[in-house]
């Protein structure tokens, strides 16, 4: 491993500027999917294009250093807090990790008192089948209701005013190892939900429930025969490698697709103009690739489906026969970019595999895929065939340990989403710099127990910093500026029209940086590490507020939230080794912090 001398390099926490922001003609958000900011925050991605961009501009680089705490609230939970607060017309909604309490706070009154609490009471045993802390990635507001998922596989709709349950639908089965951790997407009268459990030998799916009744409208699996994957006549994958009949069966050993993973635990985006939803698919199971020869469709790829009936329109497989648990579930930011004199509708995907994909969202064609972190597990993406070019030196082998694979299993970036500013045209990527040793072995399938087959040990990548916050120019495919961080940056990003980007570190620093050059402008030390989505909203008093919940955990912080012993480097699927100093840097928590400028 390269053990660089830190003192020679950029000091941690301060930005290194690589190039200038492109002037003029740059990427913008599609107006259909990204309407004007009304001061609310109704879905985790801010809008259907997943920009996580706030149109509010009271807080600017000039005054952000005066940002002060307005009020706090303890969520009474101490597991990883990954969700954003929602704000709808003067009420703030918070969904906690297990036991998935839903709080409504009244922002019109001083101190934001509790309006109501909804306690779904999920099964306690579901904590035993949640691979990476008992997190929840967020709730959604639509048509007077709050929609969210519980760890034991239910989707629940609650009346936003009264806190009464409207409907509850059981979708997942913990006996099979299924949980649900993702934030649903609500569009066109449908609630889109996907399962989690790729490490537990589940079969992955995405389902649409009717918004008013909760009844299941359609469910598409991500492995298995075409009929169950909802692949029909409309399906037109761009690349030959994704074309064929029943590939969800043919690219697996017999029966292996039934326990082959392919879950949907990350983000879903939606384009109202084409009525298509876009989502990424998780890893194939088990992690040991020798047990599942073949391309393992339709895992670790991106689907475009029709919102109304779920039929597949196109698919692109990012890592066929995935070797390193590089789930493809990261956020899909919809944007329009200048292309040969016209506007081309694309999607931006900073993927686990370490490449920043720019793909045409009508067809799935890859326009560019440049690495945004250090990658040696692959040689690159062949733009002709669309296929990832493997580096066979890094192939896992049963019974042996392969060392120095980069990026590590959480990838160059995991689930925590980046933000896109249509004003600067840059994507603000909070991500990791980790490599790993991977010891593959036979995995035994027993339903309801892990189905992994790998001993993993992760550590810092080249440079010695375990994380970074990068501003990326998606059109010129390069870094504009980057802030190296000691710990992996596991929090999502927020960027505002005022020109300030926000993110949190795993040891609790909530930071505001200049969106143009990365200069740190303000920071606040929270009581616990931050892995939750920061948001910005307009309060009832007309002022711009910044809110985030600090509660370390998730896969990266399990060593703290799960009270693990750092003496075993393979703990938490290898993350324990990467952050064994974390228990000395922060403790578990679940506190909401809301900031604003003083009057």
């Amino acid at each position: 491993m390269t053990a660089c001398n830190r003192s020679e390099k950029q000091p941690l926490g301060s930005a290194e500027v690589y190039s200038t922001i492109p002037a003029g003609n740059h990427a913008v958000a599609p107006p259909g999917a990204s309407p004007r900011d009304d001061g609310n925050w109704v879905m985790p991605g801010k809008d259907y294009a997943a920009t996580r961009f706030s149109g509010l501009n009271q807080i600017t680089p000039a005054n952000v250093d005066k940002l002060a705490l307005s009020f706090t609230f303890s969520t009474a939970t101490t597991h990883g807090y990954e969700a954003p607060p929602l704000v709808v017309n003067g009420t703030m909604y918070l969904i906690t990790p297990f036991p998935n309490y839903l709080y409504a706070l009244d922002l019109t009154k001083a101190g934001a008192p509790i309006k109501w609490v909804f306690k779904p009471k999920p099964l306690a045993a579901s904590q035993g089948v949640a691979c990476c802390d008992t997190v929840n990635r967020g709730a959604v507001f639509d048509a007077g209701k709050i929609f969210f998922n519980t760890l034991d596989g239910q989707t629940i709709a609650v009346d936003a005013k009264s806190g009464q349950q409207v409907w509850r639908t059981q979708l997942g089965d913990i006996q099979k190892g299924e949980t649900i951790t993702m934030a649903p997407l609500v569009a066109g009268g449908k609630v889109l939900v996907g399962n989690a459990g790729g490490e537990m030998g589940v079969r992955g799916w995405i389902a649409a429930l009717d918004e008013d009744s909760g009844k299941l409208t359609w469910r598409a699996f991500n492995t298995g025969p075409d009929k169950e994957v909802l692949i029909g006549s409309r399906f037109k994958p761009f690349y030959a490698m994704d074309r064929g009949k029943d590939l969800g069966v043919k690219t697996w050993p017999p029966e292996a697709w039934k326990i082959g993973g392919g879950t949907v635990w990350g983000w879903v985006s939606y384009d109202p103009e084409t009525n298509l939803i876009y989502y990424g698919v998780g890893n194939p199971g088990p992690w040991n690739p020798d047990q599942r020869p073949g391309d393992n469709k339709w895992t670790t790829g991106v689907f475009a489906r029709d919102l109304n009936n779920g039929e597949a329109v196109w698919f692109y497989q990012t890592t066929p026969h995935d070797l390193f648990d590089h789930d493809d579930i990261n956020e899909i930011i919809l944007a329009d970019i200048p292309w040969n004199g016209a506007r081309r509708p694309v999607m931006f995907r900073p993927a686990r595999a370490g490449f920043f994909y720019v793909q045409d969202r009508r067809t799935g064609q890859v326009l560019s895929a440049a690495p945004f972190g250090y990658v040696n597990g692959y040689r690159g993406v062949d733009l002709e065939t669309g296929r990832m070019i493997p580096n066979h030196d890094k192939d896992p082998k049963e019974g042996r340990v392969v060392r120095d694979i980069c990026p590590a299993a959480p990838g160059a970036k995991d689930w925590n989403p980046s933000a896109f500013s249509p004003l600067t045209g840059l994507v603000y990527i909070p991500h990791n710099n980790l490599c790993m040793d991977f010891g593959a072995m036979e995995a035994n399938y027993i339903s309801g127990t892990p189905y992994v087959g790998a001993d993993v040990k992760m550590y810092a990548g080249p440079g010695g910093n375990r994380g970074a916050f990068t501003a990326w120019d998606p059109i010129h495919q390069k870094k504009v500026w980057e802030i190296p961080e000691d710990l992996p940056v596991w929090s999502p990003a927020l960027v505002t029209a005022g020109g300030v980007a926000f993110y949190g570190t795993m040891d609790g620093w909530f930071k505001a940086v200049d969106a143009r050059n990365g200069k740190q402008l303000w920071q606040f030390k929270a009581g616990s590490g931050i892995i939750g989505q920061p948001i910005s909203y307009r309060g009832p008093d007309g002022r711009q507020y910044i809110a985030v919940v600090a509660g370390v955990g998730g896969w990266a912080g399990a060593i703290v939230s799960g009270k693990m012993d750092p003496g075993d480097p393979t703990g938490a699927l290898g993350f324990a080794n990467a952050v064994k100093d974390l228990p000395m840097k922060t403790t578990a928590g679940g506190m909401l912090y809301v900031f604003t400028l003083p009057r």
Partner: protein
Amino acid sequence: MSSRFPANALLIGLAAAALLSCDREERHSRSKPVGETVPAATSPDTIWPGGTMPQAPDPRAKVYDNNAPAISEGQFLYTRMNCVGCHSHGGGGMGPALIDDEWRYGGRIDQIASSIAEGRPNGMPSWRSKLTDDQIWKLAAYVRSMSGQPSKDAVNSRSESMSATTPATLMRRAPAHTSDTPDQ
């Protein structure tokens, strides 16, 4: 007859006696049926209101606790039955750590066997219907060896996976005491 004869005979006799009484190596491969002999829910150390009758320790504890083939078979089962998926090599993950000295549900071998057989709230699955009680006790014996509890001449000297924690033969003993942390 050499004058050394009585001394040699004595030494040989002592050695034979020592080896013959070595329970450490005795293999127990056959067991009683599932469900008949798995220990009833043995409570972790808690308050017994009004006091309680003295309870004899479970006789199987002696049979399995410092038994080398049992610990070895327990290591085989620990990986194959996916204990490693939740507890890693003792550091924990989805489940609590097993190499430390905190035990939510008790760290005696019969308490561990009970946890494995019955399952526990907050996610430990119940293995009663899937493993024989002999296998469960062997797993419990191995789990104890992860925190260095059994005698060092009975524990496994090598793991069969990536080298992770200190080998059991070098692990400093972390005597089990029950944690009082509620809820979690």
